[in-house]
């Protein structure tokens, strides 16, 4: 594919280079900003005056829902990861992410997932209209029957898959590919922010995956989790907010750490308390996993639990206070240059302080009786997420733009943009903050309410704010045309990405960056020209096609089966392409990369371990949902009566045996006994297949007896939970089939592949060890 040049469409469809993927993310996230922003301006116009009829009630609901989902999940986080894709490998001196094809897959799943979620506007009944929190039971087919809501849920699942792949990729990259000599504490702050973000993603997104899977099953198959009063509103609330609160920090941290990166550069002083800021963020992140209940203060949950949640939530302001003060102390004794990136970084900090303080109000159970569901809450999270996080990322965009484009933007236009942005934003956000009596998500309100003035000012501000982005786009476009050459390091920054030309060459550095013991970074020339150049521009059709196939399958599931079949064909073909591509990364000889604390673990294996961690959270979510529904139900079938114990026991035996045969295959691979490897893999495959067939027979039998997906909660939970497990077995068999083919063709390195696969397979077996007693015995 050597003839494909950067000017061709195919190059951009098939690229796997992290910088290209970063640019794709950047462009796409701004596309979604335009989608979400246009919707926002539409409903701001609707709300500017009482009793307006620009939007109907139902289109208003669709607009606010898609605005929320798109802005949080398809604009803000991806903008952070656009910069992360481009900058993080450069900042740690790597030549790419650990798994470049997986990175391309993340991007395409993200893009197609977003299209899937937004395409609902063009279907009968319109797009998803449940609010971005998708509360149950409004999210069920009974109350939101349109196909748009199903598409929204499926788009969300694609996004989760994308995020999971990114999470694994960044964790392995940061832990395995740091330049020789670069300790974790040496890493620039943006890389730190991304590391902490992906750690949070690892916990939070699988919980959303569990919620999304169950919702998709409820809508597509007719299971009863959220329709029933036993599951219903509170089950969704718990699952969603266990994801939702950490998600706030997932969105915030890239912006906050972009600020931490920019402040010292333009203040000309080292960051005050780098170590303290990092540990404070770790503390806040851990706390963020324990405070989801503060979104449920008025649902009538246990009063003691609520007070614990209040105290934990208020505690979060301590680490964030420490971070804020450290930022301010960085400026003491400085020589501050108020260039555009610095202006945006400082504005982000001010907005974040305001949003942080009004957030303390929301942490109070008592105040929440009055504040929940009002525009006060909308004001609060717009201050943190838009005013804080987005502004920080805009600062980051101005800061890294010379590196990405090789050109300087126009400073004067940047400052005009800044003024319009800050004035417009604060007019908007402060005035909605004052609407303490106005309910969220009403499409109109009466004149007597007294809400006119604040709404009018908010709309005016939002218009100024929204239009200010045109200046940003114009400025960036202009810089590409006639911007001054940036040179490698226009800001006199210290970090690694500024040591290479702007834009960097495909392989990032002309040699290998090395950090010496006294903190000096140097680029060691390559011993032989070759190694690093081999795969940096490797093109692959597979990631885009896999995502397209998944998109078509999901679209077909919601709309019509033939599309799903076409999708399945694309998916199968693209997986074969993926498996057949020769893809090996080349390491430089003689240099030891920094791998603390995972020195002994091979790259792929570390990736699988992180994946398993996420899977464990996903299955915990599914199992807890099952237990929730079961304990909320007044009656449940007696132990051992609903499902045939013999079938379950037989399957347990089969699956456990398959773990042993896989261990045997691994032992044989280590010894180089290749016929034994093949025998072991084939036996494992056969056992997995028998497991699935046995399961299919069991389901067919249950269906014949009239126990369908939606016949009762015991069966709904059984089908969803064991079905999700069965899908994991099936996925395992697909990989196993690949390994078997490989074991006949190329035996080199097979023991590493078998070992990585073994982690996954044993995990799937262990999950069954939990499921078997829960469904068959008790």
């Amino acid at each position, binding site marked *: 594919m050597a003839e494909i040049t950067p000017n061709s469409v195919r190059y951009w469809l098939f690229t796997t280079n992290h910088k290209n993927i970063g640019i794709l993310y950047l462009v796409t996230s701004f596309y979604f900003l335009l989608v979400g922003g246009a919707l926002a301006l539409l409903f701001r116009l609707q709300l500017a005056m009482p009793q307006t009829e620009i939007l109907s*009630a139902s289109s208003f609901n669709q607009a606010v829902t898609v605005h929320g989902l798109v802005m949080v999940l398809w604009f803000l986080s991806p903008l952070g990861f656009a910069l992360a894709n481009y900058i993080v490998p450069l900042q740690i001196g790597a030549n790419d992410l650990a798994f470049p094809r997986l990175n391309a897959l993340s991007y395409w799943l993200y893009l197609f997932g977003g299209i899937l979620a937004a395409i609902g506007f063009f279907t009968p009944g319109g797009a998803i209209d449940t609010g971005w929190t998708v509360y149950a039971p409004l999210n069920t087919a009974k109350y939101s029957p349109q196909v748009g809501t199903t598409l929204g849920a499926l788009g969300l699942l694609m996004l989760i898959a994308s995020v999971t792949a990114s999470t694994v990729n960044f964790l392995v990259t940061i832990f395995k590919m740091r330049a020789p000599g670069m300790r974790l504490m*040496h890493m620039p702050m943006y890389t730190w922010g991304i590391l902490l973000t992906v750690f949070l993603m690892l916990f939070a997104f699988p919980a959303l995956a569990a919620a999304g899977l169950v919702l998709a099953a409820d809508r597509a198959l007719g299971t009863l989790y959220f329709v029933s009063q036993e599951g219903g509103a509170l089950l969704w609330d718990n699952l969603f907010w266990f994801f939702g609160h950490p998600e706030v920090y997932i969105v915030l941290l890239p912006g906050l750490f972009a600020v931490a990166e920019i402040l010292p550069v333009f203040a*000309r002083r080292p960051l005050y308390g780098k170590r*303290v800021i990092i540990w404070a963020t770790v503390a806040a992140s851990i706390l963020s996993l324990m405070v989801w209940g503060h979104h449920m203060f008025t649902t009538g949950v246990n009063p003691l639990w609520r007070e614990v949640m209040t105290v934990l939530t208020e505690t979060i302001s*301590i680490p964030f206070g420490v971070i804020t003060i450290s930022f301010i102390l960085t400026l003491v004794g400085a020589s501050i240059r108020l260039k555009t990136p610095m202006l945006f970084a400082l504005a982000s900090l001010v907005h974040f302080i305001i949003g942080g303080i009004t957030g303390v109000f929301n942490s109070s159970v008592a105040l929440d009786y009055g504040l929940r569901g009002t525009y006060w809450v909308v004001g609060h999270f717009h201050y943190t997420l838009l005013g804080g996080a987005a502004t920080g990322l805009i600062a980051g965009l101005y800061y890294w733009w010379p590196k990405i484009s090789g050109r300087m933007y126009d400073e004067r236009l940047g400052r005009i943009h800044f003024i319009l942005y800050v004035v417009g934003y604060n007019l908007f956000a402060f005035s909605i903050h004052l609407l303490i009596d106005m309910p969220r998500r009403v499409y109109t309100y009466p004149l007597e309410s007294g809400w006119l003035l604040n709404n009018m000012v908010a709309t005016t501000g939002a218009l100024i704010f929204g239009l200010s982005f045109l200046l940003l786009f114009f400025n960036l476009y202009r810089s590409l045309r006639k911007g001054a050459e940036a040179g490698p390091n226009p800001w006199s920054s*210290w970090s690694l990405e500024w040591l290479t030309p702007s834009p960097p060459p495909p392989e990032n550095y002309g040699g290998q960056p090395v950090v010496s013991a006294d903190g000096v970074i140097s680029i060691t020339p390559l011993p032989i020209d070759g190694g690093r150049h081999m795969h940096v521009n490797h093109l692959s059709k597979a990631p885009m096609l896999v995502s397209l196939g998944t998109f078509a399958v999901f679209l077909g599931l919601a709309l019509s089966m033939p599309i799903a079949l076409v999708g399945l064909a694309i998916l199968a073909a693209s997986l074969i392409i993926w498996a057949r591509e020769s893809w090996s990364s080349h390491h430089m000889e003689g240099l030891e990369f920094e791998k603390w604390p995972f020195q002994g673990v091979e790259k792929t294996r570390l990736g699988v371990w992180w994946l398993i961690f996420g899977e464990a959270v996903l299955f915990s979510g599914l199992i807890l949902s099952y237990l929730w529904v079961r304990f909320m139900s007044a009656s449940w079938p007696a132990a051992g009566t609903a499902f045939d114990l013999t079938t379950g026991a037989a399957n347990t035996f089969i699956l456990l045996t398959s773990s042993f045969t896989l261990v045997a295959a691994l032992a044989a691979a280590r010894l180089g006994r290749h016929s034994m490897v093949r025998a072991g893999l084939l036996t494992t495959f056969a056992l997995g297949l028998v497991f699935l067939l046995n399961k299919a027979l069991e389901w067919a039998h249950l269906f014949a007896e009239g126990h369908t997906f939606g016949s009762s909660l015991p069966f709904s939970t059984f089908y969803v939970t064991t079905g999700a497990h069965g899908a994991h077995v099936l996925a395992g068999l697909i990989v196993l089939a690949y390994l078997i083919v490989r074991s006949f063709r190329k035996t080199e390195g097979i023991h590493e592949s078998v070992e990585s696969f073994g982690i996954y397979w044993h995990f799937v077996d262990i999950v069954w060890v939990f499921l078997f007693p829960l469904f068959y015995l008790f």
Partner: protein
Amino acid sequence: MSEITAQWFQLFNLYALLGTVAGVVVIGLLLFNIVRYRARDGVNDPPDAPTPGRIPPERGRIGAVWILTGLVGGILLTLTFGTINTVNLILTPPRKPAMTVEVHGFQWGWKFIYPNGKETVGELRLPAGTPVLFKVTSDDVFHKFHLIEFKYGVDALPGRFNEVWFSTDIVGTYTIQCFELCGAGHSNMKSRLVIMHPSEFQKWYGGG
């Protein structure tokens, strides 16, 4: 105003006071530093300015953290104390509620069922000065029963009854509105809350 609302405002004002002071001090400090330490002509960079290709030395002592934690912790302790105090007042009626009214949210309106079986839709009549217990539930989706003027409300969930008490001395008409998105009719899911003289209420209630 009701006792609950008075309590709510008292707590809100405490938060607002401490929040404003903290905000003004912190943002003031930030702005002061920006003005004080702006780059000027003829002034060189600080000696520890970031140098290309060199990892900056770490600076910043952990002592600042303890001072700050102490300060913020003190503020939070005050606020938490106030919150728990107020929650207890909000949750515990001053005397046994004289009447229990079932509140049913539905797409899209509110139904009120009185102890004597009387049912109203779209209007809730209550006697002034009498504590009433609401048992709030929903007949379909997630709603929030919210009394706008009183800054007070609780979620209405299908299959659950959330209990809150309420009382006010002031005769008049107020607005009940749904505060959780519940479908196309959400914006107009309102009812009137009519607080009547107890004698008038009795006339209406008994005569139903």
